[in-house]
């Protein structure tokens, strides 16, 4: 890939969110277990050598990091949370959360407002705090830091549902009233309204316990006191691995005099070694943690192809990247020695085209449906790299989150997904368009002036621009003439982030889940109350109230939405919740139609031949480092 293609991808907002180990769903399979599986048992030991071409975004600060790669490191290796994932793929319950620091799944009161977690006993932090036990208070400490304004935590909004959280954040209270440590091993959380996915929210790294400081027991934030900007450099692990040199951290001196941990050198190296406390405590069913150490080279600005070459030569075992370059995909697919070191896995995100419900001609549902018929999804996908890039999406939320309840559901299907580039597709699109008020002569081609010169925002880059061209062509077939404008990533997002800009159409949007529940797909882009003045991600203005529309200067006075349905589903748990989300999906695709879903993305992985028991973790969207081993003879 040319440098300039990657140039502006750094600012992409979508690289931030984490995915969840999702269950179910088709797409590319998890490959066979390791190319050098011997008949016998897997042997612990060896060092896993990895590579990435971008540093973590906030120096491993668990409250600030909102980045998929960082989430992977926390989950697999560094931080345990109340609940966590099993590090596996879609078919092996990788979408569920299991007790991790909790001894069992939490008990929830009948009204859904009180959650009680019982903790495992006798768990300790990594050196230098190997004598400090993990207790209930530590979780409250973590939530307090998440709420602290100066820390500017990335996803604190998930915890506003906890009683007293917002008051504490606003400085109106000294503690979070809704969280109590009933005793050292019992944590009780009271909510202001039911939230069926609270378990997922407490599997996120911001909720990982913060140890008290033995040298300063009164410090409210424990060892994080005085480290509002750089707590990650002083992170004490609770997982199977810790930063190398963790034992040298000295919390007895003032925060500004402390030396950061040696195992993380920004822009250079992440070095993880076994956490002796975790080994000794031996209370972890989720992580086998076979390898002895993990060494990740960070090389900002480096060519991915060079690193991929090293994977082929077994000099590196794995790389954290966005996809695999075409050259390497070809090499690995065609070389019989490398074929079983290349995997295409289901990702946890999608790509879609967003239509603004409050801007003509997209205020007419028939126009929006016609557009759904007209777009050539197969051609679009081929430009992205074909089947490896993802599965054509018939609807919005990735299937694995809906338990495959909507298998085969594709309300705007056209032959081979070619949209208006196939005669039947064009016919369907025209039939739909003929019912709209903007097609005055009912011939299936829009002729009203609102269909001319429709601003359409895209991003620069060879693939993206070709895709934009294709879409414009498809829409022209039904009379919608797009005024295509491509910008660099940052500027393009800047435009659609502002509801006042009234952008009618955008072609580069996508979403990535934070955890494997459809709530994270609905809450941001499809929920009226979520619309923000700045950094708004509800590009379609779905569910906007008349007041909101007026506030942002729209002439259209009302738009469809599904706010009530979202509220309903958010309160449920278990199967009823998933069923509810599936129903919401149908409402979205048939009654609201704010988007054209394009693909559910895949993730490509390449590994060296040293890796045994290759396991794909859907949450990480990467190979699960705590599940794999190194071939015994190569350790």
């Amino acid at each position, binding site marked *: 890939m*040319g440098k300039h293609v990657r140039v502006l991808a750094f600012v992409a907002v979508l690289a931030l969110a984490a995915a969840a180990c999702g269950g179910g769903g088709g797409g590319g399979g998890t490959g066979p277990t390791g190319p050098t599986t011997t008949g016998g048992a897997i042997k612990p030991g060896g060092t896993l050598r990895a590579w990435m071409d971008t540093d973590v975004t906030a120096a491993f600060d668990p409250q600030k990091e909102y980045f998929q790669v960082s989430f992977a490191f926390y989950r697999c290796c560094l931080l345990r949370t109340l609940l966590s994932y099993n590090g596996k793929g879609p078919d092996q319950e990788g979408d569920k959360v299991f007790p991790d620091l909790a001894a069992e799944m939490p008990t929830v009161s009948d009204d859904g407002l009180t959650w009680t977690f019982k903790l495992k006993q006798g768990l300790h932090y990594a050196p230098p705090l190997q004598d400090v036990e993990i207790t209930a208070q530590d979780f409250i400490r973590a939530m307090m830091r998440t709420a602290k304004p100066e820390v500017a935590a990335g996803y604190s909004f998930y915890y506003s549902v906890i009683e007293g959280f917002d008051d504490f954040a606003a400085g109106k209270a000294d503690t979070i009233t809704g969280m109590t440590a009933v005793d050292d091993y019992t944590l009780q959380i009271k909510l202001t309204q039911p939230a069926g996915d609270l378990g997922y929210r407490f599997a996120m790294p911001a909720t990982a316990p913060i140890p008290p400081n033995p040298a300063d027991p009164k410090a409210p934030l424990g060892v994080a006191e005085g480290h509002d900007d750089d707590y990650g450099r002083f992170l004490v692990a609770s997982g199977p691995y810790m930063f190398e040199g963790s034992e040298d951290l000295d919390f007895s001196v003032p925060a500004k005099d402390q030396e950061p941990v040696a195992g993380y050198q920004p822009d250079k190296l992440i070095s993880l070694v076994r956490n002796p406390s975790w080994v000794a405590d031996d209370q972890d069913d989720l992580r086998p943690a076979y390898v002895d150490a993990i060494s990740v080279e960070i090389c900002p600005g480096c*060519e*991915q192809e060079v690193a991929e070459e090293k994977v082929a030569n077994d000099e590196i075992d794995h790389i954290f990247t966005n996809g695999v370059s*075409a*050259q390497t995909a*070809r090499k690995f697919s065609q070389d019989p020695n490398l074929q079983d070191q290349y995997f295409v896995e289901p990702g946890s995100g999608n790509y879609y085209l967003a239509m603004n419900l409050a801007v003509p001609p997209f205020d007419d549902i028939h126009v929006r449906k016609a557009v759904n018929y007209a777009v050539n999804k197969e051609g679009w996908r081929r430009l992205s790299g074909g089947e490896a890039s993802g599965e054509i999406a018939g609807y919005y939320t990735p299937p694995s989150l809906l338990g495959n309840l909507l298998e085969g559901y594709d309300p705007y299907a056209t032959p081979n997904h070619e949209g208006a580039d196939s005669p039947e597709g064009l016919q369907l699109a025209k039939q739909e368009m003929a019912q709209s008020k903007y097609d005055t002569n009912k011939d299936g081609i829009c002729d009203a002036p609102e269909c001319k010169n429709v601003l359409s925002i895209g991003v620069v880059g060879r693939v993206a621009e070709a895709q934009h061209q294709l879409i414009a062509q498809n829409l022209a077939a039904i009379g919608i003439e797009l005024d295509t404008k491509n910008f660099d990533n940052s500027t393009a997002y800047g435009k659609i982030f502002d509801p006042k800009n009234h952008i009618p159409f955008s072609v580069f949007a996508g979403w990535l889940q934070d955890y494997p529940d459809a709530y994270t797909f609905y809450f941001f882009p499809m929920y009226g109350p979520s619309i923000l003045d700045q950094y708004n991600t509800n590009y379609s203005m779905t569910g906007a109230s008349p007041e909101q529309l007026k506030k942002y200067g729209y002439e259209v006075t009302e738009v469809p939405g599904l706010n009530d349905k979202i509220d309903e589903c958010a309160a449920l748990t278990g199967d009823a919740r998933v069923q509810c989300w599936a129903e919401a999906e149908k409402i979205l695709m048939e009654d609201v139609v704010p988007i054209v879903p394009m693909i559910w993305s895949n993730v490509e992985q390449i590994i060296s031949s040293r890796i045994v028991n290759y396991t794909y973790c859907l949450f990480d969207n990467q190979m699960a480092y705590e599940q794999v081993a190194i071939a015994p003879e190569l350790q």
Partner: protein
Amino acid sequence: MAKVQTEDAREDAGLEPSLGAGVGVEGRSPWQLFWRRFRRDRVALVGLVLIGLMIAAALSAGLFARYVVHHPDVNEFHFDMLDEYGLPLGPNKEFWFGADPQGRDLFLQVMYGARTSLIVAFFATGLEVVIGVVLGVIAGYFRGKVDTFISRMMDVVLSLPVLLLALGLVAACGLQPQGCLGGLIKPGLLLVSYVIGLFSWPYLARIVRGQVLSLREKEFVEAARALGASNVRIMFREILPNLIAPIVVYSTLLVPANVLFEAGLSYLGIGVPITTPSWGRQLSDASSLFQSAWWTMFFPGLFLLITTLAFNLVGDGLRDALDPRAEAAAYARKGRRRKRKEAMGEGEIVATEPAPTGGVG
């Protein structure tokens, strides 16, 4: 003819014309001498021809696109030239240089790239010349405070970390269609030219200033002043014409530097817009592929090298032609062989310097 030729030889060597009985000596103006010496420099002529070829390529790119290879859009993606992994295919009958990593016709990309390089080079150099000459003349002529101020300005500009700031400027204004400063500065070739010119003018200004400092002491300036000519008139009517030759020489030598600057900016991804073909960017795209797709690096690199080489050859030739002393030293060295040739009746002096002389390049 022989008589005139030997007279030329004597003039070239800076010797006094011999006073042959009754034979008229044709006088030659400095310009004519200049051109004659240049014409004899075969290598410089080669450079001139190469430049001509590049200009021809740049001008005819559109014609080639439409009528010869039948790919009217230089940025068109040809899916049939990418294999199933999206990697480009090599030269064939229809795509003379093969495809570039984005599936475009590399031959056309390289042809249009000539346009980019030449336009930027000429504009940037032109800007440099205008600013540099004006400021250099003013500084050298007025001396004193004015000179100090302008010289300090030159020092400041020369102290800037040029590449980084150029990248910053182009990144700021060149990456979105609306440009910056409220649309005042739009992305494109002109922006890159402005930026390059902005950072390079001190080189020329310094040289010009030096020349003016010595020229202003000459008699003809005194004479003009005595006649009551204004400062401006002296500067531009008397001094400037004497500067034309060095300006031409050094400008020509600055052109390849500017070509390389633009190529460098585009290589780093922050140069001309993506829709404008540029050899620098083509080389950047090729850098990860060239092991399997050699053509993607070979052709842009070749053309870039030829262009810069050509300008350097011409510039060196111009400089040689300008400086008779350089020729004289060579003459002195070759003295014995030349004298023998003369004695045998061969008069025409052939340039013996195929390689250019050193100096500020």
